[in-house]
């Protein structure tokens, strides 16, 4: 049996990427001809194939044998030999872990999209992009070379761009897509500079070589520089402060896109990158602190903003930003397993929440404003119940998946001590807020009196959409059990080979573990309760609460005016500077060139009067020249 696995790993690994890629290529050229349901089915089939292959290839990883402990690398072909860039794949538990999430969640979202995108005139094109995205994301996680990883890194950005502005006739969608790409590029700038240093220090971009024993090659300072630059890249992709601004706007895209790209997979690439390069981050305590701090800050800020949002998807978007902050907090606090664990559970419950929200939007005829919803529980029971599971999971209610992973994140922060204790407090507060805003959302959507606009007839979504909801709900509920501290640290064991030699934050005391779990768990319960009091119960407390929080609410509703601030301090001056530069180019740079030309021409014109037309003037010049010549000669020869 092992031979089969080996064969798959060594020969068919590329196929995992290739299948969706071929799907994308085929659909790009022929999607129009095979029509709506079939193109969706084909795309789903392609990613299902990848999923299947990934499962087969993962079996030895679960088994934890020789194959798991020695990452298999597959050299496909040389790319840029002089900088050690090549197409090489790497299969180890971490890669398997990511691949499974990407293909698994991706497959579910493909299925969901068949229903969601029903009737869209560019239905096949949508699946082209989805498949392309899957291929790109798989390239990212399977790469054993930073250059190849960067291909995936950028291509997922491209797909994000294409999918956000899928409905390009909407100017806001087009603008959002561009914004996402540009902000991501700013992050990539950091990543590229990081890679420059990596190559200059290591002489290669191959991960295997770089991550082998980096401590022997580079100093801590260099490591800090590389890690901080990687952080910039990761912050761009994973929407961390200050580069998170693109993610809320990205909600302009179709909801499955938000679920797949902007919740479950792409945005976690930053976390993956940091986990993957843990060997480097380990060399730099500073970088880890910065990562964790950025993560914690992002978590808190985004969570508060989420409270103030009325758009069903914006809430989830800020929630995603916030949860990604958690993951950063975890990996910053060297809780890599915790971070990845949360990455997984978040993929499940956030995808679930997004898809459910999509289902709501679908049923409400593209209504996204929660103030115009309410009382949908009856009309869309499956959606409501599944979303309920997601809500409780993200709120961290025991024993749903969110509880376990969030607890681990906080535990690793706590375990790191020092400054991380502060971050731990922030994390707890954020947990409370998270529970609050997500409960608020559930109540506004499903409970209370219907506030629908006229003519809206909410209805439950079709089977293709609800099926993934159910599956994800189950996963969101039970995924936490794969990594219960002390009891069943399966994930930790699974990932262990990939994180060999990495010092990780760890709590030894069982009592402490339980205590911390209780603290974080109760924070979630308090948040839920508070939200229920305010939004479900209503009455005097609601009024009291809302009066007290009016001003912060304004700030939250407007996302602390960060977009406006960026607009005023960067975009607008930037534009103005560009205009000025263009004018400078025209007036000064070009002007001086034209000036030289004009001057020459003017000089010619200025000399014309010397040619007076009078023969006697000519005679004088002739005589003067002759005398001058004679004087010159005489002076050279004699005087």
């Amino acid at each position, binding site marked *: 049996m092992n031979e089969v696995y080996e064969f798959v790993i060594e020969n068919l690994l590329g196929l995992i990427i290739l299948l969706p890629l071929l799907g994308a290529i085929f659909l790009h050229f022929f999607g129009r001809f095979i029509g709506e349901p079939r193109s969706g089915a084909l795309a789903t089939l392609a990613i299902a194939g990848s999923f299947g292959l990934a499962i087969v290839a993962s079996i030895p990883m679960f088994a934890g044998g020789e194959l798991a402990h020695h990452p298999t690398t597959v050299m496909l072909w040389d790319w840029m030999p002089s900088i050690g860039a090549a197409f090489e794949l790497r299969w180890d538990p971490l890669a398997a872990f990511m691949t499974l999430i990407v293909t698994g969640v991706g497959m579910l979202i493909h299925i969901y999209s068949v229903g969601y995108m029903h009737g869209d005139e560019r239905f096949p094109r949508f699946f082209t992009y989805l498949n392309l995205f899957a291929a790109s994301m798989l390239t990212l996680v399977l790469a054993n070379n930073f250059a190849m990883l960067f291909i995936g890194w950028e291509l997922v950005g491209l797909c994000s761009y294409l999918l956000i502005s899928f409905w390009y006739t909407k100017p806001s969608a087009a603008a959002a897509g561009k914004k996402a790409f540009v902000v991501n590029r700013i992050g990539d700038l950091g990543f590229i500079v990081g890679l420059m240093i990596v190559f200059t220090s290591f002489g290669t971009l191959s991960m295997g070589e770089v991550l082998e024993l980096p401590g022997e090659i580079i100093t801590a300072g260099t490591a800090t520089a590389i890690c901080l630059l990687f952080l910039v890249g990761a912050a761009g992709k994973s929407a961390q402060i200050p580069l998170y601004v693109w993610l809320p706007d990205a909600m302009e895209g179709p909801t499955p896109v938000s679920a797949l790209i902007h919740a479950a997979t792409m945005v976690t690439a930053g976390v993956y990158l940091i986990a993957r390069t843990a060997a480097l981050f380990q060399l730099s305590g500073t970088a880890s602190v910065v990562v964790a701090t950025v993560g914690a800050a992002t978590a808190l800020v985004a969570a508060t903003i989420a409270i103030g949002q009325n758009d069903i998807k914006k809430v989830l978007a800020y929630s995603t930003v916030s949860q990604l902050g958690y993951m950063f907090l975890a990996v910053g606090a060297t809780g890599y397993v915790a971070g990845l664990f949360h990455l997984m559970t978040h993929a499940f419950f956030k995808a679930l929440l997004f898809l459910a929200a999509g289902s709501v939007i679908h049923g409400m005829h593209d209504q996204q404003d929660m103030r115009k919803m309410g009382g949908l529980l009856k009309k869309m029971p499956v959606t409501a119940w599944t979303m309920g599971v997601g809500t409780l999971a993200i709120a961290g209610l025991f024993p749903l998946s969110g509880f376990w992973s969030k607890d681990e994140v906080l535990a690793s922060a706590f375990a790191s001590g020092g400054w991380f204790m502060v971050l731990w407090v922030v994390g707890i507060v954020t947990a409370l807020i998270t529970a609050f805003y997500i409960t608020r959302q559930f109540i506004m959507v499903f409970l209370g009196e219907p506030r629908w606009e006229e003519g809206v007839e909410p209805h439950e979504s079709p089977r293709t959409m609800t099926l993934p909801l159910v599956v994800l709900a189950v996963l969101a509920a039970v995924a936490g059990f794969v990594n219960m501290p002390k009891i069943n640290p399966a994930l930790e064991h699974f990932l262990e080979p990939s994180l060999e030699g990495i010092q990780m934050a760890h709590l030894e005391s069982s009592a402490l573990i339980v205590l911390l779990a209780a603290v974080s768990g109760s924070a979630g319960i308090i948040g839920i309760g508070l939200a229920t009091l305010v939004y479900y119960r209503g009455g005097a407390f609601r009024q009291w609460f809302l009066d007290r929080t009016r001003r912060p609410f304004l700030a939250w509703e407007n996302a602390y005016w960060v977009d406006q601030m960026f607009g005023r301090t960067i975009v607008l001056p930037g534009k103005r500077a560009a205009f000025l530069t263009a004018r400078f180019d025209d007036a000064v740079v070009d002007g001086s060139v034209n000036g030289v030309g004009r001057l*020459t021409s003017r000089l*010619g014109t200025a000399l*014309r009067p010397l*040619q007076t037309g009078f023969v006697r003037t000519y005679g004088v010049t*002739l005589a003067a020249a002759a005398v001058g010549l004679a004087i*010159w000669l005489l002076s050279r*020869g004699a005087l």
Partner: protein
Amino acid sequence: MFDALGASTSWLAIAPEIVLLLAAVVVLAYDIVAKPDNHDVHAAVAIVGIGGAAAFTWAQWRSDLVGQEFFLNMARLDGLSIVVRFLLVAVLGLATVAAWPLLRELGRRGAEMLALMFIATIGFSFLASSGNLVMMFIGLEIGSISLYVLAGITRERRLADEAAMKYFLLGSFASAIFLYGVALFFAGTGSLFLVALPSALASVVFTKPGVILVALGLMAAGLLFKVTAAPFHAWAPDVYQGAPAGVVGFMAAAAKIGGFAALARIVWEAYGPFLDDWQAPLAGIAAISIVVGTLLAIAQSDIRRMLAYSGIAHAGFILIGIATGPASRYAVSFYLAVYTIQLVAAFTVAATVSGPGSSGSAREEYVGLARRAPLLAATLGLMMLAMSGMPVTAGFVAKFGVFREGWIGGLEWLVILALVASVAAFFFYLRVIVDMYFREPVETPGTPKAAPQAPPSVRWMLAIISVATIVLGIYARPLLDFLEASL
């Protein structure tokens, strides 16, 4: 009557001149006696005369007399004289073709024009090939006086008269200055032969060569006037503009050939030992010519004036070679050959577009010429590119040659100046192409511009010059070989 000269007599040494003279006289006599209505006989005589002159020049080149002096050094049969004679005869031949429409327009006066062209050629040939300063002066005057008359041959035109008068007054003034230089040379050396100076240097130690150098200055001034070097140039734009279009190309070309050949002979041969003294002044004049010619050409709106100023700049380019010394004789003669023939072609186009007897060729006449007369436009465009020194035309090889010599000769600054000026020169050369190709004529209603018609002979001539310009640009070997074998 040449008995007294003994072995120094060689009819071959002056055979081309004799043939040309005979042709001129025959044309005149026939015209007076037969009073013909057409010019067929003129053409036949011209062909025979030019062909004979060319044939005799060739015979000179092939003969074993090369390098010798005849008529007691009054006529020399060295490489320079043969090359110049070839060039003059070629220019005369091409210019005669070009001048034929003018000749028809002039009617009976055409015979005089033809004879004057022939005699002018003889004069410049003497100027270039004599070892005696008085003989050179005579040659200079034969050529110049013929040109004065040619400038005013369309004497009913005010501008032609103006041109002739200006040319004449300034020309004789310059001749007088040249002659005074000759006199001072005589006063300084006691001889009128060029070789006197080097031989005097060999026998007597010149401690105070002042008078000799002043003589050089005055003689050079007279010749620089002929070749339109600034600041001796002032006559050229007015004369080129005013003189009849059909013959102005010849006037410009012949004077430049003769003038440069004589200048080269004087400074290299007689004043060779004084190179340190005259190099800087000549280089200075070259620089002034290049700058003045280029700048003023930019400001012109008349093509012929533009060509005049560009000719001033070209004189500067050639002077780079002259100033370098005799080593640059191939480069200089190549440049001279290429440039003067281009000049003839360019003026031929001007004569066709503006009319053979016209004075002035405004740029506006050339707008959209590429549509009306593609061949003329292509020829003029090519000549502009060649004059600008564009590679793949003979102009580039020519320029490269003198620049190279200048660089070797230590005139790096001058070469760089010339290179920069050639860039500025692109501006006015290219403007002609702009007019002909890029701009569309503003049609005044009712009077569409007629397409200028050139007779087949002229078209062939232009085609041959164009092809030669490109062929020499790609492979100048034959001409260079000829020059190297001759000089």
